[in-house]
């Protein structure tokens, strides 16, 4: 479902960030993307969400070559992805409910459908009782779970998480990881960028390792 074919990304000022990266993720697969800071993990995720475009090579997502996606269709690609960030990227002046509902509001759902799905999603991450609270009133782990609830509400086929446990202690981290495993078990593909070696070794999943922009292991499934 996700294919990288000899993908290169070069920035004018920092040079090559990704070099000939090739790999393939299958539907329902869960994988870690690891490497030191600046190895290109975030850049790789940005290419999938078309926040950046690759300089060379091809990326296929659900059979679509991302290179051919016009600018105005990018939002529709993003709606099929679940993006999760280290800093959660929540709207602090909106309630938990409104934060989670945002992707559905954007996609033009009616409010009944929104209410139903937001509550289902919040229930999934165990925050159903906090829907009227504001994000800053919640703990770090809870905020990340709101981020996850928002990411999965559009029923994405691929979840991309960039250092999702970066701001969480080990206990909260494993809670979040259990959530990811649950999504993977229902057929969602999950790609998690992290440099948390403990986390990776504790969980037995495929690991894609980046070093100075090259994929040094895990490239072949």
């Amino acid at each position: 479902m996700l294919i990288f074919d000899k993908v290169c990304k070069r920035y004018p000022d920092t040079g090559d960030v990704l070099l000939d990266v090739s790999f393939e993720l299958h539907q329902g697969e869960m994988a870690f993307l690891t490497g030191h800071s600046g190895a290109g993990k975030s850049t790789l995720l940005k290419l999938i969400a078309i926040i950046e475009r690759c300089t060379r090579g091809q990326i296929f997502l659900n059979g679509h070559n991302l290179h051919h996606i016009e600018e105005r269709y990018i939002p529709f690609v993003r709606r099929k992805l679940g993006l999760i960030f280290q800093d959660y990227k929540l709207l602090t002046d909106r309630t938990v409910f409104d934060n989670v509902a945002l992707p559905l509001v954007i996609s033009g759902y009616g409010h009944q459908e929104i209410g139903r799905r937001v509550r289902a999603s919040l229930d999934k991450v165990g925050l159903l009782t906090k829907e009227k609270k504001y994000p800053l009133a919640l703990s770090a782990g809870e905020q990340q779970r709101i981020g996850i609830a928002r990411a999965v509400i559009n029923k994405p086929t691929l979840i991309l998480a960039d250092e999702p446990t970066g701001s969480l202690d080990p206990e909260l981290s494993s809670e979040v990881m259990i959530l990811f495993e649950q999504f993977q078990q229902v057929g969602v593909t999950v790609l998690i960028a992290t440099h948390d070696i403990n986390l990776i070794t504790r969980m037995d999943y495929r690991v894609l390792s980046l070093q100075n922009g090259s994929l040094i292991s895990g490239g072949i499934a």
Partner: protein
Amino acid sequence: MTRQNKRIQKLNTIEKKQSTTPRVKKVSDNIFEKFRAYLELHAQALFSSLGKLLKTPLTSVMTIMVLAISIALASSFYLLLNNAEQLTGKLEASNQISLFLKSNVSDLDGLKLADKIKQFAEIKMVDLITKDSALAEFRDYSGFGSALNALESNPLPTVIQVIPKNSLERSEDILQLVADLERLKEVDIAQMDMQWVYKLQSMMNLAEQGVILLSIILSFAVVFIMGNTIRLELEDRRDEVLIAKLVGATHAFIQRPFLYTGFWFGFFAGVMAWLIVMVMMLILKSPMERLSELYDHNYEVLFLNFSESLILLLISSSLGVLGSWGVLHYQLKQMKLE
């Protein structure tokens, strides 16, 4: 890797056959449900942008006042011009020409000339005023009756009053006619009685064009002020915009609340401008009415009527939206996700 290469080749050929746009899954099978959700979005944007405006009353009021003053300036010029046109409009009808014949031309010769002039294509009516009737008229109206009795002979010339056809509305044509008539050998002076009306009318035309130009410039001011206000607002809500973009918001979705903000600013500025103009006209009402008395009460002070007020609101709201749209169109493309 060779297996993967084969798959990529296959995908590429499939891709070429497919349209390059990702298929967007139907949000709802029920088109009404979707339409209702869309209307809900608009209503939500309309009211939430109003709410945001009210949250920062001082800033909003100041911006609205700046916009309102620009709009009020343009509309009060328009209104003053309208009032002035009402005055000159009444004077328009008369474009009579008086031909003062040379003093040695007798009334009889004058009558012959009048008949000749009557044959001209451009002439509608000719009226002869004999020396005697002119003297009688002068005696009645001037109040110099007794003094005139002292004169031995009648010093007044024979006068032919000529009214050109209405088709001669262009002042150049009338001037041409006056020149032609003056060339007749019996004619001493050909005078356009209402030449000053034409001067006034061309001045009014100039003023009208001036007001149009000024209004255009002031509209630009409104658009730029609005644009800058929205730019600051966008900067203020940068995080929100970026997050919305990340979860798949289109530019149309992101723009919507800002466009409504522009609409509200323009709308309130229009209402404020209307009030300013009305207050100005109320202050000017009594001096204008005094002027009206001098014009035999034929003159009525004009305010903005209902449709003009509506147009004022429409224009100010549109300028608000236009200014916002211009900035959004440019700024949203500049805003890059990190």
